[in-house]
């Protein structure tokens, strides 16, 4: 492996980002490898995944919870040469990398064939500081507390769930599905439904059709994906674009759909397919779409998606957290 020359080293010491990236490129160029070269980070989307979402670590987690951290570490060391099985975020990451879309900040160690080169092992500390420092576009974890913390810090984040069955997912096109209210958009309209009922909701949405909704926690991630998509469009590759986005909303096209589309337009964002279910269950439709990941704020929809084989990620945001299947949940006393 070639050593860094003094001039490269001097450049690397400069604190400007440009110098560091150039040094990295020099380094990567000097590697003799057949693996696809990681994309230059500034033009890629930065995703952070926790090790438990990238890999299946159910057995290990059990040890951690039942026998404590020392036993957990001992177990890991004992098995460190055995590759881990894929977890729920694996297909999303794999296809994202394969289509050279993502760079990764990845919180895991035992890696398989993925070209993930960057990782943080924070020794149990909260990763939020690091996510902010590296301008992460999306954070995926199994830990809903960390995910909530990230959302409160303004980082798009979701808790990923493993589906009950496996499904055939595309290897060449990354397909990402989003719920609308309280995911891409704020929960302002959902509050109306929960507190005043559907009829009031329809009237309200029609009345305010031309007023854009406020943004939700995953809007900036959609935006980041959109930037990548536009690069393909500019090369006349719209038909072969390796990213496809979907909106899967319980809203109905006739009564409350227009506001959603107009909001997206006002943000300058495109979504490839918008599917208005008018309250029908999302599971079957998602089964047809086969996204690598589906974001929703309501556990009810997450469960429906999971049951039919869709990898679903819960966004713990907004009024939906206080309800289950339309009924108000009794909130336990908040943990200190």
């Amino acid at each position, binding site marked *: 492996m070639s050593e860094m020359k003094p001039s490269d080293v001097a450049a690397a010491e400069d604190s400007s980002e440009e110098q560091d990236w150039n040094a990295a490129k020099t380094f990567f160029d000097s590697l003799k490898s057949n693996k696809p070269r990681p994309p230059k980070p500034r033009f890629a989307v930065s995703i952070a995944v926790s090790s438990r979402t990238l890999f299946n670590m159910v057995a290990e987690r059990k040890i951690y919870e039942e026998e404590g951290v020392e036993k957990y570490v001992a177990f890991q060391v004992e098995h460190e040469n055995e590759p881990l099985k894929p977890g729920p975020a694996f297909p999303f990451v794999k296809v994202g990398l394969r289509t050279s879309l993502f760079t990764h900040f990845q919180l895991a160690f035992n890696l398989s064939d993925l070209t993930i080169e960057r*990782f943080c092992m924070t020794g149990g500390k909260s990763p939020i500081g690091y996510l902010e420092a590296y301008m992460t576009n999306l954070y995926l974890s199994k830990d809903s507390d960390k995910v909530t913390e990230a959302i409160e810090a303004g980082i798009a984040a979701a808790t990923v769930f493993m589906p009950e069955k496996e499904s055939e997912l595309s290897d060449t096109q990354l397909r990402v599905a989003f719920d609308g209210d309280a995911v891409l958009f704020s929960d302002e309209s959902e509050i109306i439904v929960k507190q005043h009922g559907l009829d009031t909701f329809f009237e309200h949405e029609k009345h305010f059709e031309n007023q854009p909704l406020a943004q939700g926690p995953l809007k900036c991630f959609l935006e980041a994906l959109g930037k990548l998509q536009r690069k393909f469009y500019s090369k006349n590759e719209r038909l072969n674009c390796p990213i496809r986005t979907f909106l899967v909303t319980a809203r109905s096209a006739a009564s409350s759909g227009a506001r959603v589309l107009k909001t997206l337009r006002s943000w300058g964002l495109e979504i490839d397919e918008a599917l208005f279910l008018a309250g029908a269950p999302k599971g079957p439709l998602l089964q047809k779409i086969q996204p690598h990941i589906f974001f929703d704020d309501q556990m009810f929809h997450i469960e429906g998606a999971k049951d039919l084989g869709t990898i679903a990620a819960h966004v713990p945001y907004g009024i939906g957290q206080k309800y289950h299947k339309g009924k108000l949940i009794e909130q336990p006393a908040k943990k200190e």
Partner: protein
Amino acid sequence: MVSTVQNTDVKQKDSDHAVVVAVASRAVFEPGAGGGDGVYAEGVAFPLLQALQKVNERLLEENSAESLLFDIVLITTDSQQQQQSSQLISSTKHYGLEVSRFCFSTEEDFSESLLKNNVQLFLSTDRNEVSQTSQKGVLSALLDEYTASCPSEQLRVLLCGDAVIRPDTNPTPASRQAAQSFSARLGKMRQRFGMSDSPLSITLMTSCGGRDSCGGALQTLRSLGISADEAYCLAGAPQGPILSVLRPHFLLSDGFSGLED
């Protein structure tokens, strides 16, 4: 000319087993600033000293007969500060700093006095000083203004897995050896504590290499008996953001690369 004064307020450490850390007095106390009553004001290395002391305290809690402790020496070359040696000593006692002895040396004899005192790590805010002592084979690390904002409750050491962090300290085999043996002792200290609530935290960072480089560095550490608390493989990402989150008291490079030539 070197003169050494023992701090009678502090119990002297077992020189065979202690880890001698020398800190430039200029880093511990604000030069020239009078804190009133002839006591110096706190310098950037103050939290660092408190953190070193915290480790000693906790080590003794675990085992009151512990001999693997930090032995802290304040070293002064600044002739101005030497003239005010009594003020230096009284300031140290005033703050209750666990400094075992004070070393007053000329610039010429400086590295010599470090070696003679069996110093395993030298810390200073002066880049030239650090460069010189490093070249003479004394493991040295540079402190800067960020050190002042580091925690005083936990000593945080950053080991750099690829030797690009400090380009002006050319890694000689001797300094590599010094880095490894110091870190090995740090690793031993770390073992005295459990996974959480440790007063000492060791972090590995590789800046340029990919995961193999970091993985190799972790293996090297393990072979030295060091279990890293945290590990960061930056693969070219800028270091600034992560350093501001990690807030290490000092960085050590050389000797941890997994892919050694």
